[in-house]
């Protein structure tokens, strides 16, 4: 992917992709803002979720549960189940970036699917860890800014936007994650881990609450890495 070793062009390419991701998720931010106020949350409460919770799946789960008439406990549980995976991402981003002081708090808050995947996707590039760090911060900040502006716009102008899926954005997000994962799955072992994680997640979908299939995929990856480590000793 990276034929040029010119660091400026690499950074520029990462920044372009980060902004593209920000604009893509913003369309869902509009929907989220609209759903929030339509459900009966105040503008402030809706915005608070995008600022503090800042993990899209959990935000939709919380508000969606309220919209469906669910209570506080089930709404908080649904949101939290979808948020647990950020813990695993955070451990990984911590070991990659080793931030200290206040940067630790910012890095934690910006740890989401998109920023983690961008960091992962650029670790194998010409810039290695430096490129991965830049990709993390650029994507995290881009998504945070676009997501929050979009939430506000959606919350103020409820019926303004149609369904993002009309524009194929649901497929775009999946394809984006595949593109970011692509450079990481070159060895047979990584391909096997990726396929096993996907297979276990798919098999689990009908039987467990949303959020858990992704955790099971992480469990499979952990198991694979552990078995490999033991086998190599």
């Amino acid at each position, binding site marked *: 992917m990276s034929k040029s070793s010119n660091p400026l062009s690499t950074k520029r390419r990462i920044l372009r992709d980060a902004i593209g991701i920000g604009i893509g998720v913003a369309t869902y931010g509009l929907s989220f803002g609209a759903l929030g106020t339509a459900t009966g949350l105040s503008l402030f409460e809706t915005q608070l979720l995008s600022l503090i919770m800042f993990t899209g799946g959990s935000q939709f789960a919380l508000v969606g549960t309220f919209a469906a008439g669910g209570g506080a406990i089930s709404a908080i549980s649904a949101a939290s189940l979808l948020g647990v995976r950020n813990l695993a991402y955070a451990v990984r981003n911590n070991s990659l970036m080793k931030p200290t002081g206040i940067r630790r708090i910012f890095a934690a808050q910006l740890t989401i699917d998109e920023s983690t995947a961008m960091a992962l996707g650029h670790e194998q590039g010409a810039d290695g860890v430096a490129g991965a760090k830049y990709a993390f911060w650029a994507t995290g900040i881009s998504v945070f800014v676009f997501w929050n502006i979009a939430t506000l716009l959606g919350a103020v102008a409820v019926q303004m936007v149609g369904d993002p899926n009309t524009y194929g954005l649901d497929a775009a997000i999946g394809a984006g*994650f*595949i593109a970011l994962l692509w450079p990481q799955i070159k060895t047979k072992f990584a391909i096997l881990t990726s396929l096993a994680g996907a297979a276990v997640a798919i098999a689990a979908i009908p039987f467990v609450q949303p959020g858990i299939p992704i955790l099971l995929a992480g*469990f499979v990856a952990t198991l694979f890495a552990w078995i490999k480590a033991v086998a190599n000793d």
Partner: protein
Amino acid sequence: MTEFFWPVVIASLIAFAFKIAGFLVPRAILEHDLFKKIIPLLPVGMLSGLIAVQVLAVKQAIVFDGRVAGIVAGIVALIFRAPFIVVVIVAAAVTAIGRAKGYWI
């Protein structure tokens, strides 16, 4: 302030607690040999699971719809070494055009 205020605050703090917990894992543990082998593979497995769920799940049902066509188109673009933005646009376009023409939902 509505009836949703406290659930919003509590759920937001739980979400942040998960994130910060990962950044408070001591360096010594992160540098442990077994951990160093597991940590890089963890997001590979989880993002693979996330992709599978995003492409096939509607709540707790498995649904083959326009997303699958877009993903296949995106993978073809990747095989031809298309850059990130192109992969994403190809996937969105195939899914959106097929939906507009009624080939899939």
